[in-house]
Structures are given as structure tokens and as C-alpha cells.
């Protein structure tokens, strides 16, 4: 009897946790269906309608384009850098490998808001010295995101590479495969899950970021989360609810796709990484 009660307690906490985590996201989706403009939230929607979905201002679509582009480019660059670093770290037989790994993880120790200010100030000084101002440009944003996301790609690719048995490549070599085809037909397929997971991490971190982009966005160059952030702070627009719902659906699909593609173990964080 007592055993049953304890289980109920734990399941109760679990239920509350899920409600707390997902309830607000569902609330956004439900609120987006309320057709009448109002600042109060009605549940269930009193005038169900999809009207806000056709009233999303152009600036949000532009911002979505900026976010997708910046996150995509940054994720690709950091996956390539991370993969090279992971191969060099794991296969290089370094004596100070943990120290090197810790070095690549340093960006995780810096709060994102600090990274934002650091790069803003650095870009300002660069502009002062050279006349080229990376603030409010794609390059400026991508460089900061590469800095932020390298730890994720080094971690995920590293976790996969250390599981690959080098004898497989040796076998291919013995059987007469060239170095290129060993890489393309043996190593690459084996580390592919790590590459996908690294890309995914980089993309999702960069795509959802506010604290870095809030400093580096300028003029017409603003990312979607920053655009939403400004709307919430200064002038609420119900269209934001509709737009957010679309982002929620997009993110959920992306996450499920990645989970299918690479499985749980790479996406779940672990204390050893």
C-alpha cells in the first residue's frame, strides 16, 4: 500500500513537470487561435479562427530567413571544425587530451549574454580600426555562433569517433582501398550520426538564440527570436502567437526527425561529455 502511494507521488511530480514544461507551449498554440484581438487570454478561444496566421507582418518572415541562414551556415562551419578537432583529438594520441577537450569546451563557461557583449565590443573596435563593421551583418552573427557552438560539435563527433574501431579502416586498406575511399566508404558512414547530431545542436542553439543576436542585430538585420523578444517587450502583436506556433511545429518536427536519424544516446546530454 505504502509502495503504491510513493509511486503515485513520483508519477504526480512527473505529471506536474510535464504540464509545467509543455503547458505554456500549448497555451501559445491555443491563444493563436483566438480571432478577436485582446490582451487577455481566453481559454478555450471564444472566437476560433486562423486569422492571425494570414496577418503575420513581413518583418517576421524576413527575420525567419535571417535566423535560418545564420543558424544553418554557423552549424555547418562548426560541424566541420568540430569534426576535424574530434578526429585529431581522439586519433592523435595526445597526452593532454582532457585538457585539450576542456579548452574546446570553454565557450560553454561563458554566459551567452557575455558572448554577445564581447563580440559587439570586438566588432566595434574592428570597425574603428579597419572601417569594416560586422555588427548587423551575416558574417558577424555567424562568427559569434561558431564560437558558441564548437563545443557541441566537438563533443558529439568525439563521442562517436572514439567508438569507431580503427581496425575497420585498416582492413579496408589491406583489401586495397585508397585513402579517399577508406574515408568515404568506411569512416564517413561510421561517424555520420555524430555529424548529424553536431549539426543539429549547432543549428538549434543558434536558431533559438536571443542574448547573442540582441547585441549583434542592427538595422534591418534581425533574427526571429530577437524580433519576437522585442515585440514581447515593447508592443504586443497577436500575430506573434501564430508565428510562434509555426516555430514550435517546425522545431518539434526537426527534433523528432533528428531523434529518428541518430537515436537518443547522442542527443541526450551526458555528464562525461
Amino acid at each position, binding site marked *: 500500500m505504502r509502495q503504491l502511494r510513493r509511486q503515485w*507521488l513520483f508519477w504526480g511530480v*512527473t505529471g506536474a513537470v510535464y504540464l*509545467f514544461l509543455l503547458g505554456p507551449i500549448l497555451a501559445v498554440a491555443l491563444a493563436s487561435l483566438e480571432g478577436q484581438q485582446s490582451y487577455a487570454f481566453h481559454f478555450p478561444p471564444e472566437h476560433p479562427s486562423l486569422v492571425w496566421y494570414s496577418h503575420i507582418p513581413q518583418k517576421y518572415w524576413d527575420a525567419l530567413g535571417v535566423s535560418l541562414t545564420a543558424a544553418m551556415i554557423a552549424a555547418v562551419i562548426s560541424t566541420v571544425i568540430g569534426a576535424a578537432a574530434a578526429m585529431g583529438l581522439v586519433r592523435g594520441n595526445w597526452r593532454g587530451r582532457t585538457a585539450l577537450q576542456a579548452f574546446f569546451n570553454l565557450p560553454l*563557461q561563458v554566459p551567452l549574454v*557575455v558572448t554577445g*557583449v564581447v563580440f559587439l565590443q570586438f566588432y566595434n573596435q574592428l570597425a574603428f580600426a579597419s572601417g569594416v563593421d560586422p555588427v548587423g551583418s551575416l558574417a558577424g552573427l555567424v562568427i559569434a555562433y561558431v564560437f558558441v557552438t564548437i563545443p557541441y560539435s566537438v563533443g558529439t563527433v568525439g563521442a562517436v569517433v572514439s567508438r569507431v574501431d580503427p581496425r575497420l579502416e585498416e582492413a579496408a586498406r589491406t583489401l586495397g582501398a585508397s585513402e579517399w575511399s577508406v574515408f568515404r566508404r568506411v569512416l564517413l558512414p561510421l561517424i555520420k550520426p555524430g555529424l548529424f547530431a553536431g549539426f543539429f545542436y549547432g543549428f538549434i542553439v543558434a536558431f533559438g538564440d536571443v542574448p547573442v543576436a540582441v547585441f549583434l542585430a542592427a538595422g534591418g538585420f534581425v533574427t526571429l527570436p530577437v524580433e519576437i523578444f522585442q515585440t514581447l517587450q515593447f508592443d504586443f502583436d497577436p500575430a506573434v502567437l501564430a508565428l510562434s506556433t509555426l516555430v514550435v511545429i517546425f*522545431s518539434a518536427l526537426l527534433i523528432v526527425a533528428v531523434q529518428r536519424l541518430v537515436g537518443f544516446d547522442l542527443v541526450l*546530454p551526458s555528464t562525461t561529455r
Partner: protein
Amino acid sequence: MSETRLAGVIPWRRFLWPPLLIATVLLVVPHASFLWMSLHRNLGMGLVSATLTLDNYRRVLTDSFYLGSLWLTFRLSLIATAIALAAAFPTAYVLARTRSRWVSLLIALLLVASFMTVVIKALGLSLVLGQEGILNHLLQAIGIIAQPLLLLNNDTGVVIGLVQYTLPLLVMLLFSVMQTIPRSLEEAAELLGATRLATLRRVVLPLAMPSLIAGGLISFNLDMGAFTSAVLLGGGKVLTLPVLIQRKIFLDVDYPIAACLATVLVAIVFAFNLLSVLLLRQRRKTAAEGVPK
């Protein structure tokens, strides 16, 4: 033999140099110029003095306004971390122990909650927690409260936002550790007459302790640096360090003080981590010595 051959075929070590160079440049150059900035006096209009000075640090570390912000950030982060850990432990335990078919769906939902951009989560929380929000409506309808609870634009709102920010990550982290704790240990303890509570307290908890501490640290670090939820759920009234840093840049255009505040924030987070790593090592050492032969 195979190692030397492998090393001979492909120069793996060389793969490390370009990433190491890039990571070093991205780390050192901007941060060095940043530290440099924190050592100058602000002259207004984005200009700074030419001479080096420690004045900014002296100001930040003696002025009660900045110290208050520091203490607020620390306190809210600590409270949020404690709540998140208390909620994450039972949840991770349930997920790791249940034999339900729904586990993979539940994990996928955690991933969604964890990777969703913070702005949308904060937007959702403000819909739920507002004075006209769902929660207050619900509680008033049931008759638990007469007046709506003030859950937004204050410390409470920020703490709730912080908990939501780190909770899914903590659950995933603890889940992946608890999966590795063999069920048989608990069964053995129960066979030997331990109650469920005693089994949890004396078998599961000690085994999960290192990951609880590691998770608590990660959560605390994230909370100390949390910007988006602190701004949106604090309504600009709760001035934690990250919020203050942004204000110094945008409202006061005081780059040196912002740089100094940011440096102090990073230093505190770093020192806290270092301290707990040392404590953890000490604990492990005494634990190892305490084991009867």
C-alpha cells in the same frame, strides 16, 4: 604495432591544428579586447579614456547597487536550481524505472521542451501566469484565491522562468545516469527489508549524487547567465547581472562598466565551478578513506 601504422598512414594529429587555431583566435582576441575595455574609464558617447584604471572594478565591487544585483542573481539562481533539482529527480527516476511503452514519447517531449527557443517558452509562461492568465483564472474559479497572484514582472516570475529553462536538461541528464543504476540493487535492498524510502535514500540517491551535483552546477551556471527569461518574466524590473549588462550597453552606452560586470559574472561562475570541483574531489577522497577494509 597497429597504432604506429595507423599514425603513419594518416597524420591525425595535424587535424587538430586548424580547429585549435580557430578556437583560440575566437576565444582570445575578442575576450582580450573586452578585458582591455573593462580597464578604461567611460567618457560618455561610447568614448573611453586612454589610461588604464581599475576604477570600474572598484565601483562594481563596492557600490551597493551592483552588489545588490550580484546577490539577487546568485540568490535567484540558487533557488531556481534547488527547485529544478527537486522536480527533476523524481521525474528522471520514474522515466528510468517505468516499463511503459510511452517512455520514448516522453523523452521526445522533453527534447522538444528543452530545445524550444526561450522566447516562445517565456511567451507561453506569461500567458499562463499573468493576472488574467490561465492559472489565476483557474485558481479563482476553484476558490483557492480571492485576488489574482502576482506571478509576473517580479522575482517569482524570474525564478519560474529559470526553472523552466533548465528543468528539461536536468531531467535528461539524470535520466541518462539513472538508467545505468541496476534495478537489481534496489531489489536486493528491498529483499533485505529496506522500505522504498530507505532504498531511495540509501541506494539510489548516493549513486545519483555525482550527477545531481554536476547537473546542479550546469543549471546554476545557466541560471546565472540567463538573459531572455529574466528580461521577459521580470518585466525589466528584476535587474539580475545579465539584464543589467544589456541595460548598460543600450541605455547608458557605458561599455567599460558593462565589460566589467560581464567579467565579474564570468569570474564568479568560474570560481563557483572550480570550488565545487575541489569540494567534490575532497568528498570523494574522504569517502574512499572512510570505506572499511
